[in-house]
């Protein structure tokens, strides 16, 4: 069935953050937050608690009977391999490990800079007889939400999609009606989920869908969804990310959003309300409008440079905001040159120029800055920059070539 497998593969595109998670958004919840959320909707999760105190960790482990798993609450892929997850038979051992783990920097292939462990989750160990995969997410192509299922749980779903796409089944969710029990039953049968697990899975999936919709999640992923030797279904691991745009109606998550920032500059950007993504290179980029900024970073790459960031100054930016953007970029010590690419629509180029000059003044910029400004009030803007150390450029291609050449000189 080539048609079907193609459809399966396309749905998988939305499964970023699965397994080797790297969503790049600020609202990825920690495992303990995800489990708390799902638990509120009646989804069975392992008993456990979160703490930042080793003594309390031992106490939690003792209450759970000593046979526990300790999990570092860091939002990075490869957490297990980095030594952030371990099983113990006694509360004492768990407490010892907690002492060593809290405050430690975990480093993995996916996150070479590493992250410092602030909180740990201590949970009961789940005896796993069988592992499945369940997720609720948006199918962009269909413009609808879907449930994704596979009997192949416990591994990276994208790998499953490549090696065995037929094992992945998706069930569309009607935007008005939601999902019907029979649709879930059909999906479970198609995914070859064992018959004895299905009735509990129907209930769990309905609750996952409810949680997904009501929490404005971008994705709810249970991997593995475990079946214990005595036949109970439980969400052994859970990953939930929340749609940033919906935070206005979820004050509870809003409070935790800073906590889940993955990079200190990105965190500061979020505080200033600036759309900034750190890319790890050395040429800073400021532009207006997502498409134009993306295009600018393509041009930097084409010119042989390595972009340090994606930064969208936003529509109608005033001088103060432009200055704040330059300031933000300069927090990255790797930045060797700065490209400013503005096509003024609502944004006035003279305001941008004033912002650049203010930044030049106050930040004592020593790196080369190339500015290409076009559109509304461009003449006035260029006049303001004339005679300063800002290097002008006519087109964005020219600007990219100039800044790369100057920065690497």
């Amino acid at each position, binding site marked *: 069935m080539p048609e079907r497998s193609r459809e399966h593969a396309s749905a998988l595109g939305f499964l970023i953050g699965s397994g080797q998670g790297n969503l790049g958004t600020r609202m990825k919840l920690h495992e303990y937050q995800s489990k708390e959320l799902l638990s509120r909707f009646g989804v069975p999760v392992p008993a456990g608690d979160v703490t930042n105190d080793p003594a309390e960790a031992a106490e939690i482990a003792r209450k759970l009977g000593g046979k526990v798993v300790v999990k570092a609450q860091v939002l990075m892929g490869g957490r297990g391999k980095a030594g952030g997850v371990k099983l113990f038979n006694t509360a004492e051992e768990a407490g010892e490990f907690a002492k060593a783990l809290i405050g430690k920097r975990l480093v993995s292939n996916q996150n070479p800079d590493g992250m410092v462990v602030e909180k740990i989750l201590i949970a009961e160990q789940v005896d796993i007889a069988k592992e499945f995969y369940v997720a609720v997410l948006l199918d962009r192509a269909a413009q609808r939400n879907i449930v994704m299922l596979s009997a192949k749980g416990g591994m990276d779903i994208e790998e499953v999609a490549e090696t065995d796409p037929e094992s992945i089944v998706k069930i569309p969710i009607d935007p008005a009606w939601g999902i019907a029990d029979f649709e879930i039953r059909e999906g479970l049968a198609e995914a070859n989920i064992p018959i004895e697990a299905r009735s509990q899975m129907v209930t769990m999936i309905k609750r996952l869908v409810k949680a997904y919709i009501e929490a404005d999640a971008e994705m709810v992923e249970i991997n593995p969804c475990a079946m214990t030797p005595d036949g109970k279904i439980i969400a052994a691991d859970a990953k939930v990310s929340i749609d940033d745009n919906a935070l206005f109606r979820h004050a509870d998550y809003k409070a935790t959003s800073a906590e889940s920032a993955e990079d200190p500059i990105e965190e500061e950007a979020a505080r200033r309300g600036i759309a900034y993504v750190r890319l790890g290179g050395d040429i800073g980029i400021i532009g207006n409008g997502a498409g134009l900024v*993306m*295009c600018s970073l393509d041009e930097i790459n084409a010119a042989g440079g390595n972009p340090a960031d994606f930064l969208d100054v936003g529509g109608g930016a005033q001088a103060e905001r432009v200055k704040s953007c330059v300031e933000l970029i300069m927090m990255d010590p790797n930045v060797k040159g700065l490209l400013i690419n503005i096509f003024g629509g609502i944004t006035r180029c003279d305001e941008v120029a004033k912002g650049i000059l203010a930044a030049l003044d106050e930040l004592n910029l020593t790196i080369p800055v190339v500015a290409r400004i076009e559109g509304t009030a461009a003449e006035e803007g260029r006049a303001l920059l004339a005679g300063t150390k800002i290097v002008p450029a006519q087109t964005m291609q020219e600007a990219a070539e100039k800044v790369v050449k100057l920065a690497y000189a």
Partner: protein
Amino acid sequence: MAILVDRNTRVLVCGMTGREGSFHTQQMIDYGTQVVGGITPGKGGTTHLGVPVFDTVQEAVEKTQANAAVIFVPAPFAPDSVLECEASGLPFVSLITEGVPTQDMVRVVNRLRQNGTTRLLGGNCAGIISPGQCKMGIMPGHIFKQGDVGLVSRSGTLTYEIVWEMTRAGIGQTTCIGIGGDPVAGTRFIEVMRMFEADPDSKAVVLIGEIGGSDEEAAAEYIKTMTKPVVGFISGRTAPPGKRMGHAGAIISGNTGTAKSKVSALEGAGVPVADKTSDIPRLLLKALERLGVGV
């Protein structure tokens, strides 16, 4: 001729009295757009920027014979505004507002598609302009020029960049449409391509895509059947996977949404894809020349 909006379009502005709404309403009026009314609940009966304000869309439609609306209402209230426009019988709505939650868009877009009476453009888009006739959006009007090339894009400022290159090269536009940068959009590339194909005045089309989703690929399938030449551009060719590039929808997810996949789908449909924005006028001129059409 143009698609969706022209000099006969009678426009309502939802959220007209707000800061953004006021600024852009004035710009639209200055451009020559027929702005016939504004909607702000509680301010009905007043006048703003010389335009009558109404409490409800229904009343505004009855009193002004409006046939389109542009929405500047803040994100938490924007979905309601779209539904009100639909319920009041407006056939076309342009949603400029950025930041509407995805789940709201899923519900609204599916409802509008099911009812089939209102075309929604956006959200998180620059809107639509038929140069010299009507502007329902936030684009700077002066960079556009009336002509015979249609344009559709997910990005606002990148559209301005490319339109400005076209205008300076003497290539005018029939209609330029921003479909917006969100993952769930009211109008998709393929739908706009169908409209341009059917529009006798549009001789060629520019499609400006970006990373994320698979709408460019879907459009490429349709382009194979089109009689008109199409020129493409894809931004974010060097964007890293898993990072959201400003637009909520601009993210490479697993193997889906890469620029490579979009470029190869378009090229597979016979569309020349520009490496640089500055190449677009040349590719357009070449495409139009081949058809023996003057610009």
